């Protein structure tokens, strides 16, 4: 069988080149290997989640893919249009909302502000365009950071536990938002999370990291939109929890 079976084409299937290709990746901190022999391919438009216990190297993997860290060994190829959403919204406190959204963008201020307005409307924050970051709630700030990440239409979005710092209700709303944004924009996503349900709701494919490597892979074939109350999510949930070493009766 060809590699197509091992890494099936995503639903936004196309012949486009993969947006991430990681080969024989190793990352050492001192004597300890946090990642050891990681192989990873993310196809165009594919939503891949990485789950694992804390300290298993999943965030390190994402930072390496994002270019914020350098591998000890191995190669990483990535789509240069990538953007990354951090766990904290990471807004620049001394720039108002629209200047945060257009950070790094060149061009006339009026045009940039219009661009910001367009993406802010998509995350429902058009009316906060001139506000200071400090006046936003946690969920709003994270939506602004999504708008910033989407502005340049990246083909790859890296998500580093982007809902981890939010309360449970806000998290649900944000998960629905990212599902909608991905449907509308068709970017590929690599999501690091420790929330099994979140991974199932959003992903085409879920990878489980353990002992510095990718230990398991699950394809999620459930139709979309997915609902967190849907009982057909349960078998996969149990399988993932088992992979994570959590016995759930």
């Amino acid at each position, binding site marked *: 069988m060809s590699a197509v079976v091992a890494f099936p084409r995503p639903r936004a299937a196309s012949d486009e080149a993969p947006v991430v290709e990681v080969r024989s990746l190793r990352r050492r901190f001192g004597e300890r290997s946090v990642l050891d022999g990681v192989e990873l391919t993310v196809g165009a438009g594919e939503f891949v989640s990485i789950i694992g216990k804390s300290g298993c190297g999943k965030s390190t993997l994402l930072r390496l893919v994002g270019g914020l860290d350098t591998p000890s060994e191995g190669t990483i190829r990535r789509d240069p249009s990538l953007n*990354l959403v951090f766990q904290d919204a*990471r807004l620049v406190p*001394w*720039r108002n909302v629209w200047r945060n959204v257009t950070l*790094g963008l060149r061009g006339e201020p009026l045009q940039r502000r219009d661009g910001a307005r367009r993406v802010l409307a998509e995350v429902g924050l058009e009316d906060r365009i001139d506000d*200071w*970051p*400090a*006046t936003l709630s946690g969920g709003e700030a994270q939506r602004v950071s999504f708008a910033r990440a989407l502005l340049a239409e990246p083909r790859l979005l890296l998500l580093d536990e982007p809902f981890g710092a939010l309360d449970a209700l806000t998290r649900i709303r944000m998960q629905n938002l990212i599902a909608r944004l991905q449907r509308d924009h068709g970017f590929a996503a690599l999501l690091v999370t420790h929330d099994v349900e979140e991974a199932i709701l959003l992903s085409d494919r879920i990878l489980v990291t353990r002992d510095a490597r990718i230990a398991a892979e699950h394809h999620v074939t459930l139709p979309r939109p997915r609902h967190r109350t849907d009982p057909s999510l349960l078998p996969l949930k149990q399988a993932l929890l088992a992979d994570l070493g959590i016995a759930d009766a």
Partner: protein
Amino acid sequence: MSVRSDTIIRVGVPVVLVLAWQAAVSSGILPDNYASSPAGVVEALATLDERNLLWPSLGTSLARAAVGFLIGGSLGVFFGTLVGLSVRAETVLDATLQAFRVLPHFALIPLLLIWFGIGEQPKIALIALASFFPIYINLYKAIRGIDPRLSELAAIQKLDRWQTLRDITLPGALPGLLIGVRFALAGAWLSLIVAEQFNAHSGIGFVTMQARLFSQISTIVACLVLYALVGILIDVGVRLIERRTIAWHASERAR
């Protein structure tokens, strides 16, 4: 306690003190030729104005402080930015500059007098020295203190060097810089007073020295009042600039 009664007390204490001072002199408890009196000070200011000394002297002193502050402050901004941004510049410069900092700059007065003579230059050099270090240190520390997570953001957003400087580094260091400016202005003003004690031919310090020769207590106290008033005005001015330029900072603190 309410804000209003706080304000009344804040303003009331100095007013009561001034009234007590006047009362003590008027009643003869305090000899007039030792401590003057508020009325005497006002009179002395009026006399200075009549002799066309008040505003020109104030102008001369302010100009000295301004020139010294601008020279010292610009150097402080330059070196503070350089050492803040570059680890290499820090290695080369910081230890040396810090060594100079622990030296009280008034100790350099004899040297400055020999180098520059007794004209304007040693005065301005002294003021410049006093302005340099607060700005240098506060700006350098402020640049180093910027949240390192923001440089990750800069990398992700593909900011170039100039954009990073303009959008992240410099605005992030602005509150620190303004703290430095406040200290520098206070230092400049203090150094002006010291500098005008040696060989001034104009300025408030010169007026003070003249008054001392003729034992004009009221004029001396009037000059002290002038120094104090200008000092307060400068501080208020910097606070206003702070409030204007770092609006985001206020909202950050109000969180």
